[in-house]
């Protein structure tokens, strides 16, 4: 799953605030580090050498000790003041984060599962709600309010270029607000260890210009496209009769389970398995045959089907734009 995935290249107000705070901290800490190490280096450089048999000088030198005590006191005072400054910078940044205006926000209900993200786009009329997986589209410039809930273990939602991370904890509900100010694809990844495939639980937030976003949203609300070719019809038949329909849902077909990603518009997503494998016809067939090969330990079982059946299913799923 490719996309901008970097704390140091922010694309939203939240990440920008954090980037500024990072710079302040970096500068302050580097200064402290350099000053201390230089002081140490000078001390070591100028201090005379001796051997272990040299007699320890026990009588304190009043003059030298006075200067040293003054420098230590100044050192402590300086570092305390610096820490206070950093503390204030941290509080200011924290307030800025929570001050994001939320008017006209896109509401997304994000549920973390073991090793994929379920996103349900809510809307005032129930008929217009739809759910997708692992790839979220958001309009540029409009705030997004994401409600976070975990279905099994603790996960953590984190798209570094847009905002800080927030944990999804079973039994608790938390929300995070973010906004993308530049169009682009921003990658994120689960940041709390959640089991075998914590490594491949990525997600992508695609910031589209408002017009593209409306078009994408309208497309997502459509039921699945009817199969046209014989191969696609065969693919649909297999999807409805074999184990796919036991976990997946494709609106408009008899597959209506909710335990796995909604495949109604799977072809509009660039990757499968939350970033495990690219969504090309060949790889899709291989993924259906044995997902454990790419992502061992996930809940999707291998399917022993003939190669042309796999091709038919891959073709059918490929047609679901």
């Amino acid at each position, binding site marked *: 799953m490719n996309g901008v995935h970097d704390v140091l290249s922010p694309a939203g107000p939240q990440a920008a605030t954090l980037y500024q705070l990072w710079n302040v901290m970096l500068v302050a800490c580097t200064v402290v580090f350099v000053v201390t190490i230089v002081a140490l280096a000078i001390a070591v450089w100028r201090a005379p050498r001796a051997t272990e048999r040299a007699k320890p000088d026990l009588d304190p030198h009043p003059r030298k000790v006075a200067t040293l005590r003054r420098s230590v006191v100044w050192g402590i005072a300086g570092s305390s003041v610096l820490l206070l400054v950093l503390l204030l910078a941290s509080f200011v940044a924290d307030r800025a984060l929570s001050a994001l205006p939320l008017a006209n926000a896109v509401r997304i209900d994000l549920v973390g599962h073991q090793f994929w993200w379920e996103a349900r786009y809510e809307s005032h009329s129930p008929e217009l709600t739809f759910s997708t997986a692992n790839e979220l589209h958001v309009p540029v410039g409009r705030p997004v309010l994401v409600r976070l809930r975990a279905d099994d273990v603790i996960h953590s939602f984190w798209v570094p270029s847009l905002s800080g991370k927030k944990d999804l904890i079973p039994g608790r509900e938390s929300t995070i607000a973010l906004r993308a100010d530049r169009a682009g694809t921003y990658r994120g990844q689960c940041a709390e260890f959640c089991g*075998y495939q914590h490594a491949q639980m990525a997600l992508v937030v695609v910031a589209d210009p408002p017009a593209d976003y409306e078009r994408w949203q309208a497309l997502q609300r459509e039921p699945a496209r009817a199969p046209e070719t014989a191969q696609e019809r065969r693919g649909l038949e297999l999807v409805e*009769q074999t*184990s796919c*329909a*036991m976990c997946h849902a494709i609106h408009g077909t008899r597959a209506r389970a909710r*335990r796995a990603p909604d495949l109604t518009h799977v072809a509009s997503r660039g990757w499968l398995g939350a970033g495990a494998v690219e969504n090309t016809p060949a790889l899709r067939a291989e993924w259906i045959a044995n997902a454990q090969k790419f992502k061992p*330990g996930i809940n999707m*079982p291998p399917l*022993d089907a003939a190669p042309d059946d796999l091709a038919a299913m891959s073709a059918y799923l490929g047609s679901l734009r």
Partner: protein
Amino acid sequence: MSSRFLDRALVLAVASVGALTSSGCEREARDFLPPKPGAEVGHAASAAASAAAIASAAAMVGRYEHNAHAVSAGKRLWTWYNCSGCHANGGGGSGPALMDDVWIYGGDAGTIYLTIANGRPNGMPAFGSRIPKDQIWQLAAYVRSLAGLASADAAPNRDDAFLTRTPESFSDSQKPETVKPSAATGRPQ
């Protein structure tokens, strides 16, 4: 403590570690891929799985009933595939109770595999074409742990959910007994 006693103690320790190891490996193995097709049971949607299923069930015991991953996967599938709809959490509903020791068609893993794969006339749907074989074996292992017939070490503990019964690792296969709800709390005594 004469040294002779120590040698014997040493031998005993090594033996017990050996036993622990073998049971440990079997219980803790995480095999995400199903066994090679040879050891499998033919399951084409139409053909009924034959007596071979029961014969090969014995071979499956180590890989499923004594394996904690397989039994807990069976417990997850029990909820995912709506078995809990008819059988609740083992107590039964429109389907029979599976946590007691009364088996309508037999309680061994092979028969349970056949029941899931081919269904039963009185209302058990056939899942053979819709659930992969490996998962049917996992479900069979979990059903046996419901009744306390699978190994207690591998049996799953309680779920992070609403408590409806004592965990499977507690269940022993004695008969169901009646539980009078106390008037005040409604909790069974």
